[in-house]
């Protein structure tokens, strides 16, 4: 069996696949040898419920043969199997060419030679014994369970350690190691009437190691100390009166709105109809590039595969393209899209901006999201308090929960973890049952102010879904706190007719 920690053995797998693909007449071929360690631990009321330790190893080869794409993959990472992959990928390209309506081309990318890169971290979570993980989550759970008013606690952590060795016929060879982690703790309180409320930690998933759970990048101790009191207040809070409100939205909630209404909407493969059967298309059609008024003039959105600790950060993407940073919305106007090499060539771009990704060696790379982030205002201000000060009657929203958006990324609805009433520029207690609903361009067009650098936070998710067969991608979204005027608020209980 191939030892994936041995560069020479990995090179032999690369060479076998690419050499055979070249022999078969492929002009382009990319091979990935991957080793992905995923660990999940979950406790319920302080007792271990789930512990999984998964190691995925495999080889995936994509070829372009006579303008048709073929992909083949195996979990047997040997040179012999890799050479067979080339035959199978070419056979797939040939078989499906009977229904090929357009020849596939890839946008040019210069070869980058040998590249070695690692995301920044101190302790790889895969190296932390399960007992230590359980012990820390037990301690966190116990702390909440001991607090008055907390009836149940779930605590978990997902951690991934990913090694990807990429090579292509053009001559790029990239060995990349990425680590990411997502701890979540949720407390639940029951009321006397049979109702309940939950309160979850707001800590985002990040491209960091185990040190994240010990204070490097997030104050878990401080947040856990607040949860019981916040939960009790939420349980006692009044249900929101539906209507239109001004919103101050914290980055812990807004990252998801950015993800759904900007991140996906500005994927050019979607806009051109290549996800029409699954993820959907986009209202931000290509003919509106440099013209579409996406939002207010304070809106500046950047796609970036180089963000420190970003979940979509890489040195080289899964088509051999170097990680880049590029504008998507500038001064409120659509000025760019996320691209892979296929869509870049099809739409006349000279180069891809590096947004190809496959979530597994067994999946073909497709266009996936960069770290798409809303930029803060120039300088330090305004602060969140200053944004709140500009609201006479509104709601301050923190933390993500439920999310949904239509297939063209127009109509969305989000809830959250914590909702505070704003009266006269000040917080005036929590609310329950809040959901906000809007149309993308109306919402971003009503964004009156963005907070300064002091309010900026990198949120994100491990589980962005796209493609058929389905793939999940990790991605981060940075943003400041923002002030958005006149947004429709629903009462979730009333929506159910109760």
């Amino acid at each position: 069996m191939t030892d994936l920690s041995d560069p020479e053995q990995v090179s032999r797998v690369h060479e076998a696949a690419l050499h055979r693909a070249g022999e078969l007449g492929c002009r382009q071929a990319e091979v990935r040898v991957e080793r992905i360690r995923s660990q999940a631990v979950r406790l319920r009321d302080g007792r271990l419920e789930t512990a999984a330790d998964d190691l995925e190893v495999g080889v995936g080869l994509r070829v372009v043969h006579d303008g048709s794409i073929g992909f083949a993959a195996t979990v047997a990472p040997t040179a012999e199997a890799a050479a067979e992959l080339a035959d199978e990928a070419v056979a797939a390209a040939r078989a499906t060419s009977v229904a090929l309506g357009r020849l596939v081309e890839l946008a040019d990318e210069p070869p980058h030679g040998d590249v070695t890169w690692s995301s920044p971290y101190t302790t790889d979570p895969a190296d932390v014994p399960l007992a230590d993980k359980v012990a820390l989550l037990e301690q966190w759970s116990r702390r909440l369970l001991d607090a008055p008013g907390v009836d149940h606690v779930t605590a978990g952590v997902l951690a991934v350690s990913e090694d990807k060795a990429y090579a292509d016929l053009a001559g790029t060879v990239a060995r990349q190691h990425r680590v990411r982690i997502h701890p979540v703790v949720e407390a639940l309180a029951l009321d006397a009437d049979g109702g309940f409320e939950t309160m979850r930690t707001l800590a985002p998933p990040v491209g960091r190691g185990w040190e994240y759970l010990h204070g490097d990048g997030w104050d878990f101790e401080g947040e856990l100390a607040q949860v019981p009191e916040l939960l009790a207040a939420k349980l006692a809070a009044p249900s929101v009166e539906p209507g239109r409100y001004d919103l101050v939205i914290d980055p812990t909630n807004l990252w998801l709105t950015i993800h759904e209404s900007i991140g996906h909407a500005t994927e050019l493969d979607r806009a051109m109809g290549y996800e029409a059967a699954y993820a959907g298309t986009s209202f931000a059609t290509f003919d509106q590039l440099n013209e579409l008024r996406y939002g207010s003039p304070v809106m500046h959105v950047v796609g970036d595969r180089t963000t420190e600790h970003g979940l979509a950060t890489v040195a080289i993407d899964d088509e051999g393209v170097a990680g880049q940073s590029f504008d998507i919305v500038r001064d409120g106007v659509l000025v760019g899209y996320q691209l892979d090499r296929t869509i870049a060539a099809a739409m006349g771009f000279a180069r891809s901006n590096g947004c190809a990704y496959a979530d597994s060696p067994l999946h073909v790379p497709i266009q996936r999201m960069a770290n798409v982030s809303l930029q803060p205002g120039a300088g330090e201000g305004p602060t969140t308090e200053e944004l709140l000060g500009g609201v006479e009657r509104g709601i301050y929203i923190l933390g993500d929960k439920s999310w949904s958006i239509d297939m063209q990324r127009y109509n969305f609805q989000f809830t959250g973890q914590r909702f505070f009433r704003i009266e006269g520029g000040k917080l005036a207690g929590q609310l329950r049952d809040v959901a906000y609903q809007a149309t993308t361009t109306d919402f971003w067009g009503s964004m009156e102010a963005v907070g300064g650098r002091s309010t900026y936070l990198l949120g994100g998710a491990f589980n962005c879904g796209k493609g058929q067969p389905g793939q999940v991608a990790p991605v981060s979204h940075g943003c400041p706190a923002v002030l958005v005027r006149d947004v429709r608020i629903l009462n979730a209980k009333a929506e159910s007719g109760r």
Partner: protein
Amino acid sequence: MSGRAENLPPAAEVVETALEQAGGEGCIVLVEDTSEAEVRFANNTTTTNGVRRDRRVTVISLQASGGGTSAGVARRAGPADLAELVAAAERDAAGSPPAEDASPLLTRAEAAGPSGDFGAPPVLTHLSVLSDVLTGLAEAFDKAKKEDRVLAGFAEHRQSTVSLGTSTGVRLRHTQPTGSLQLVARSADGTRSAWTGAGTADFSDVTIEAMDERLTRRLGWAERRIELPEGRYEVVAPPEAVADLMIYLLESASGQEAEEGRTVFSKKGGGTRVGDTLAPLPYELRSDPAEAGLQCAPFLTTAMSGPDDSVFDNGLPLGRTTWLEDGRLERLRYHRARAALSHAPVAAPIDNLVLELPGAEGSLDDLVARTERGLLLTCLWYIREVDPATLLLTGLTRDGVYLVEHGEVVGAVNNFRFNESPVDFLGRATEAGTTVRAIGREFGEWYNQTAMPPLRVHDFNMSSVSPAS
């Protein structure tokens, strides 16, 4: 495919070797061999196409600890180093507290009976399974181009063979073929769209031609466009839309979580709503490994414990399980340990789901013909939970909502965002048709084997208009 398959040792050999190497109180070994072939297409051309071969080996080690039994689970892909894998599982078991879901491993006599040839090689698929689909696509693309239509979709076929062995002598094997074909047709200007999808075991019962004809009919309906506001409407929900809502309902039917007071199935004051009537119509919602046309594994395999699933229950015989009977909540999901604690029957997950109203007859078209005024849906999309207490879900209509008046479709309506609970949805249904195999647009990817009737439901909550088309 066959060449690389031979690079992997036989599953039975992997099971026996891992069990031989394992120590402790017990051991479970799962080998999952998967072979897949797929064709994706959009804009009247094939796009990403391929084949893949996967193997996952899971070792679950059981160790005595603290007066109980702890479990360690490790999983590896491909030709796993079994000594390393067993050691990893044993290390995790040693590092874990006693498992809350611990139960004695099933014996050979207690587990499901003989199932398959344990030593046989895995069943593989090949892209040739999709050759008729590809031929059909080539013809459909030509036709679509001439008629200013654009086709997109996905066809996939999978053969999954699972082999289970335990230190108590259980040896079980099951092969599950699954496939699906989905097709979307849009007018070239993007203003009209329609979707259809089907689950299939071998693609002998689906054709691109028939699906394309269905979509052409619907695009024709959409030539007349009618704008309607948000509000509550009578809807005729096709089996595909019903499937997604029923899947979510079942996935929310955790016995333990209901007892904890945190789901729609929690009883006010404590306990669960088992026994409560949820719907006035006498529906049956069931899962059954022997369901005709939807056969699935007759024994449980799971590599991960959760509130309702337990690794200790691997090999558990699965039989017909009725979740709703006569419209009454009959069962919630429990693994053995929790069921014993709660004095409830064990109810493990089964890989199919059927909703049926005894005696109901009629197709979707028949329900439309009996509609005075209402909305005919195509499918639901981006379904997410808003409120677990009511199981309020939000989501959107997609690829075709049609106004029906006096028994006929009179045009296409704008899309809507809905806010609805599947429990209330069932409760407000006034008529059902014949149950047929149908695949949910949203969850069918993971829950391929569902059979549902079309339903008529009044006061469906269309919360706002979606401009998407």
